[in-house]
């Protein structure tokens, strides 16, 4: 495989994806202990869309995501300790133990939030983008959602308004071919998402193969155009979830998708592929530093306190 990406860049992409993978593997490994009392929707296998798109974003840019939000949170630079402590329900978590796995947010790095109700943060991204543009800031907003979200009415409503107002927003559909156990063709006769975006006047591009470099490239082109006032863009990134919809395990036994289909994606593991482009020593050093960072974050989470009882009543309203 040939690429003109610099070693620095490849190292960055590798590190970013690996970190997500390893954190989630650790979550899965300890899940049986019930220390994490929060339903987890793992991104294992789906690291490329978040990592690729976030590479194209500037620090001041912001993102919105979903309950399957670990990858995005980390790719956008969210605090790892804050995330793991949140999964543990500790008061030092990024949501003080009120967010759990499904509502990770870290405003300090532009991770604006997530929702567990499918598709419902899409219009937030559009509103945020509209607000920034109206105030003459050059922020770009990216919003991530699954192939299921496309079927919710709020998605086309949001496309229409974004196009109408030329809002600086990048719509990113992570098409992993399933919504829970339901394959796309059971939910829509023609999964031509790009065409639907284009019917609203929004340029769209489909990136096959869970390819982080292709995703990053397409995202860069889109973000550049958006930042110059070119209006909203749509990306459909093909990807694949390796684990069960929610929970730590695999689910090939359920039979709604075939092991062979899964294998074809696992064999083409993007982390392995990009890792292979790196100098082995460099790769080993990244591996080690990622492990250390994760070790630290879990130790931090273990050591910290749960919120005290009064916390229950706090933050219902803003002062």
């Amino acid at each position, binding site marked *: 495989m040939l690429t003109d990406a610099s070693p620095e860049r490849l190292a960055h992409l590798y590190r970013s994806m690996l970190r997500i993978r390893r954190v989630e593997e650790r979550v899965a490994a300890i899940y049986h202990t019930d220390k994490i009392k929060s339903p987890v929707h793992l991104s294992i296998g789906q690291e490329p869309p978040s990592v690729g798109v976030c590479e194209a974003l500037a620090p001041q840019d912001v993102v919105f995501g979903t309950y399957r939000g670990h990858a995005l949170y980390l790719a956008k630079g969210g605090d790892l300790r804050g995330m793991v402590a949140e999964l543990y329900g500790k008061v030092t978590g990024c949501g003080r133990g*009120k967010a759990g796995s499904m509502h990770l947010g870290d405003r300090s790095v532009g991770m604006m939030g997530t*929702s567990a109700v499918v598709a*419902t943060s899409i219009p937030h991204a559009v*509103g*945020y983008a509209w607000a920034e543009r109206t105030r003459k800031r050059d922020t770009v907003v990216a919003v991530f959602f699954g192939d299921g979200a496309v079927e919710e009415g709020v998605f086309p*409503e949001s496309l229409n308004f974004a196009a109408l107002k030329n809002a600086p927003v990048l719509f990113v559909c992570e098409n992993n071919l399933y919504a829970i156990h339901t394959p796309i063709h059971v939910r829509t006769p023609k999964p031509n998402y790009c065409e639907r975006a284009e019917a609203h006047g929004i340029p769209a591009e489909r990136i096959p193969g869970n390819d982080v470099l292709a995703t990053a490239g397409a995202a860069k082109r889109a973000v550049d155009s958006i930042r110059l006032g070119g209006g909203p863009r749509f990306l459909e990134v093909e990807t694949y979830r390796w684990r069960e919809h929610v929970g730590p395990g695999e689910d090939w036994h359920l039979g709604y998708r075939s092991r062979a289909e899964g294998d074809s994606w696992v064999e083409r593991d993007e982390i392995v592929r990009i890792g292979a482009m790196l100098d082995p020593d460099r790769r080993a050093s990244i591996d080690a530093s990622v492990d250390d960072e994760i070790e630290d974050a879990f130790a931090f989470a273990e050591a910290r306190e749960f919120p005290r009882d009064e916390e229950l009543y706090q933050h219902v309203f*803003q002062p």
Partner: protein
Amino acid sequence: MSSSLEAQRELSYGEALYEATAQEMERDPDVFVFGLGVDDPKGMYGTTQDLHRRFGADRNFDTPLSEDAMTGVAIGAALAGMRPIHVHQRMDFLLLCMNQLVNLAAKTSYMFGGTSAVPMVVRAIIGRSWGQGAQHSQALHSYFMHIPGIRVVAPTTPYDAKGCMLAAIRDNNPVIFMEHRMLYNLRGIVPEDDYVVPFGKARILAQGDDVTIVAISHMVVEAVRAHHHLAAIGLSAEIIDPVSLAPLDIATIAASVERTGRLLVVDNGWIMAGAGAEIVAQVVEQLQERRLPRVRRMGFAPTPCPTTKPLEDLYYPNARTIAAAAHTMITGKDGWIPEGGEAREIAEFKGPF
């Protein structure tokens, strides 16, 4: 103009809303108004008219018919630090964006551990007037009272309309601002200055000893009329307007009921699991150690709203039926009902729809 003269200036309820909005838009560039028809020739009964000319097309704009996404857009803009005012011609249409209001706006502060705020005002107009029918006449305030994380206000006077609007815009939380169409032309004294009516403080609009009538939105106007009907036969009703429903000033209401021994809640909505149920329950909880009151609730008939006038007249409480109910509570006798016609604002209303 001297300030005492100023204090005497009269505005209509609609004008008061317009003034509050314009003043705050002047003061704070992050405030903007949007919603179906806000910049159209009728300008929401004048409450938004010309704001786009005064403040620019980005600060008072029409939208597509997409209540759900538009509510999400308001939330997103609020997350970016702006202060949206989202206007709905009919409160019924909030049923299209309950998810954004309840699952998102109301929960954002809490879900993200207090790190995010959603300051936004949702103006919800109650669509009463003849023949509006089942889908254009609902008042759904109890839906929002039910949800932690959201405030609900329903001012009745022009004075409160302005002060509550300023408070709502400055509040750092989502606020449902309920307005009744029959109130827009009612006039009252409204200071020109900037002032805030704090949430959580009820108003006693008329004093009385025989019964406490707590009324909501337009029913306050009818209750005040009922007060006069009752006064004419020597009965004295205290009239309380909660103004804000969440937070709810139960202390003022309970103190009055403790004195009068009788509570009549007149809601501008359905009774079952509504605001009136909450008010009765809280009053009883508060007073049970001291004096248990007699209670009664009035509100919309337990039916969808019919269109034909004779049935519509039966569907809503009015000054006469309120007075009759209070009379029965006080005297224990049924059957008295004062003379009188339909409220002026109802009789005269012929649109705009």
